[in-house]
């Protein structure tokens, strides 16, 4: 295991609010995410999942401890860590395609290349026909897909996703799950994926974390062996494996007991 390119959460605690009435959102958390891992994080609402993601994204600084990538401390957001927000965060003054191309534009990629990339990712998330609409003309789930396309197009090393498929119908969700797995298998990107669906966590993740609430604490951390880079098994096949069902059951009970 090489630690050089790992993401290390080292003794991080997070408080919110004024000194006298502060709320602890995260209790002391230590976590190492190895390059290429697909980490799924589940846990009851309000337990601190988004807080952990925002700390890693660099949107907030930890009250205590530090987070490092390849040994250097995270002091703010950066293009190495792409974020899919829990509530879609798009720019209404741009059309859908321009939103998707934005990361490439910031990187100085040529217009033609940008167009080609955005077309590819819009096709992937099924928004080709909406490329030139304004973002507020999209449904919630479509906005979510647009966000996903935007992050994938900007090609970050870490992809941080906060319930990205929460607003999607079962069919679209399944399709995008497979697309994401495909990308992960091909590129070996490191992914942190927050979800409320235990099934999704166990199906997608190469590692499953469960957090307990008040204050947030990682209480379950196990590898999931069902999807591996470089190897693809049919979804139905995975879901019928006894080991899959067993792990899913243990994750579920761990979430129940964490309440």
């Amino acid at each position, binding site marked *: 295991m090489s630690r050089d390119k790992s993401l290390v959460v080292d003794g991080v605690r997070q408080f919110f609010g004024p000194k006298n009435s502060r709320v602890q959102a995260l209790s002391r958390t230590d976590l190492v995410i190895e390059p290429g891992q697909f980490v799924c994080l589940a846990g009851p609402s309000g337990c601190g999942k988004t807080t952990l993601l925002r700390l890693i*994204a*660099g*949107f907030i600084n930890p009250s205590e401890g530090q987070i490092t990538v390849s040994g250097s401390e995270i002091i*703010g*957001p*950066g*293009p190495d*860590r*792409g*974020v899919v*927000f829990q*509530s879609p*965060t*798009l*720019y*209404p*003054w741009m059309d859908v395609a321009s939103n998707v191309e*934005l*990361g490439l534009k*910031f*990187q100085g990629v040529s217009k033609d290349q940008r167009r080609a990339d955005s077309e590819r990712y819009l096709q992937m998330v099924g928004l080709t026909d909406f490329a030139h609409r*304004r*973002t*507020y003309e999209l449904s919630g789930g479509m906005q979510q897909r647009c966000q996903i396309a*935007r992050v994938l197009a*900007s090609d*970050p090393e870490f992809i941080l996703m906060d319930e990205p498929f929460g607003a999607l119908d079962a069919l679209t969700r399944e399709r995008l799950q497979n697309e994401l797995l495909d990308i992960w298998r091909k590129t070996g990107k490191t992914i942190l994926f927050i979800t409320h669906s235990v099934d999704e966590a166990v199906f997608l993740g190469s590692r499953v974390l469960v957090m307990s609430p008040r204050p947030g604490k990682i209480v379950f951390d196990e590898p999931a062996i069902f999807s591996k880079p470089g190897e693809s098994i049919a979804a139905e096949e995975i879901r019928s494996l006894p080991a899959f069902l067993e792990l899913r059951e243990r994750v579920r009970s761990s979430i129940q007991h964490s309440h």
Partner: protein
Amino acid sequence: MVIPLDGLEYHPSGGPEDRHGGPAVVSKSAPLWVRVRKNHWTTRLIALAAFLVVWWILTTPWAWNGDKPIMLPLYLPSIPSVWNAFIRANTIHPIAEGVDREVVGEYGYYLWQHLLATLQRIGIGLFFAIVIGLPLGLLMASVKIISVSVEPYINFLRSLPPLGYIGLLIVWFGIDNTSKIWLLFLAAFPPITIATIAGVSGIKEDQIHAAQSLGASRLQVVSSVTVPAIAPDLITGIRVALGFAWTTVVAAELNNGIPGIGGLAYLSGTELKTPLTITCIIVIGITAIVLDSIIKAMERVLTPWRGKA
């Protein structure tokens, strides 16, 4: 109609749904009372007609009143005399009846030249107000020291009636255009700066975060997120500033205001040319409404996402 309060939209007739003068789907054959209820333009036309009728009644000679109008022409001139004043102001005409010498419009300028002179002052004043007020607002919103130190002065300036310091500006910049443009600038930039600050503080944090996570530099955050995000507030600020500047410029032209529509209104009043004064007032009011409609249209075209995202 100018906007009376910062940020509050003023809808001359009814709620915000009345953006295009009411729904246009009322059939022409519908009874009048239905049209009045459904279509604001019908209502407006009827109100205008009623207004003109009252004016006509008040200014027409009546036999029972000793062949005199109810209101003397000096106080309220008749509709035809106002119309004549309007025509006179737009044509070359004899200086007086039966005199050969001909003059241009009023005080050497056509009415539209007076109006144009005033609009030019507004345009220049507003231009500088935006050029200075917008960056100042951005600066105040992002640098604490600047906002803390400059804000009291902006509030101070904002609380002064511009006419209170026109005298000072005349001393500093002379009685001609410069002092008037300064006055307009000083009147118009605080609303723009304040709207900019409000706009910046209304930006959703995550919109900035998203751009930073996509690799935006500081400058790219400003150009791709901050500026477009504040555009709706900025346009509202410009609208407020324009309304404010318009009422101010008309008053500012009390001193040496020819050419200028405000100067013309004032001068004609002092010379008891009441029909011309009323012509000017009508022109001033209609221009204000037109200017405001232009900005409202720009708002719709430039910031279509307003209120939707």
